[in-house]
């Protein structure tokens, strides 16, 4: 007779993303319910709820650490903007500024398509967001992805404050940009989380 095994990855994900708490009892309850006929979708929803609730509890219990993570994240995002632009100039062959003098790069260095300018800039932003998420988790590794959620909140507050005068004109653009940034921060952060020990 085969025993109905619950989705193992979901449990590992919970332990990996919110490692500051012990999820053993909760996972036991989920396993019991799953074997009594609950669906895999139900199991996954319960795990996602546990990630949200666990992260919120961790942030509330470590407010100062969460504030620090938010400040570090926003600081890195602010730093990444001029760095992205500088990198874009170099990668597209436009040149770079050296002690107030613009140094143009040789023509052969230039990427041949005009749209490359935009593509390179966006790629730089994407890579930097991934790196920011990764760095925030590495600095607060015992909290897993929790502190990236704090960073996401701080990044959203910063973005709203920065774009407050234009919010009425660009609500969709701001929202989609923010959602993409959150996604990348979380993706970068999850790459830096520790693998849970297999029981």
């Amino acid at each position: 007779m085969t025993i109905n095994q619950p989705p193992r990855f979901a449990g590992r994900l919970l332990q990996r993303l919110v490692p500051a708490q012990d999820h053993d009892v909760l996972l036991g309850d989920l396993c019991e319910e799953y074997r009594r006929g609950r669906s895999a979708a139900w199991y996954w929803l319960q795990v996602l709820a546990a990630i949200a609730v666990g992260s919120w509890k961790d942030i509330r219990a470590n407010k100062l650490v969460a504030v620090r993570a938010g400040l570090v994240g926003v600081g890195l995002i602010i730093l990444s903007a001029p760095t992205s632009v500088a990198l874009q100039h170099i990668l597209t062959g436009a040149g770079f500024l050296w002690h107030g003098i613009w140094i143009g790069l040789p023509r052969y260095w230039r990427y041949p398509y005009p749209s490359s300018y935009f593509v390179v800039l966006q790629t730089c932003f994407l890579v930097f967001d991934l790196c920011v998420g990764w760095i925030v988790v590495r600095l607060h590794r015992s909290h897993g992805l929790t502190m990236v959620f704090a960073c996401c909140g701080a990044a959203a507050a910063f973005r709203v404050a920065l774009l407050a005068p234009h919010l009425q004109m660009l609500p969709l653009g701001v929202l989609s940009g923010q959602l993409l940034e959150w996604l990348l921060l979380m993706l970068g952060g999850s790459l830096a989380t520790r693998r849970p020990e297999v029981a």
Partner: protein
Amino acid sequence: MAGPSSLGAADLMILLVLMRLGDDAYGVTIARELEETMRRPVALASVYATLDRLVERGLAVSELGEPTAERGGRAKKYFRITGKGLRAVRSAKQSLVKLWKDLPQLG
């Protein structure tokens, strides 16, 4: 810290469920009882968040059971209401009954 009389709706419901279930109160049975009462799905994690808060406030106590194969070798955590919790429930009931009285629209 909030006093025993300041119970939220979730705290009160879970304390009542603990009283109803007696010795068989653990995550699954508590969540089931809540689902049957409220007729909507309940997240086990939020049940545990409330239970942990009640334990921290001394309104409930918890005890680990034996690990079982049915639960993938994991133990159950049983919860029980304390005397302080019982007093808090009684106090909440008195306050609610007082507010309920003389409101014909609520039957």
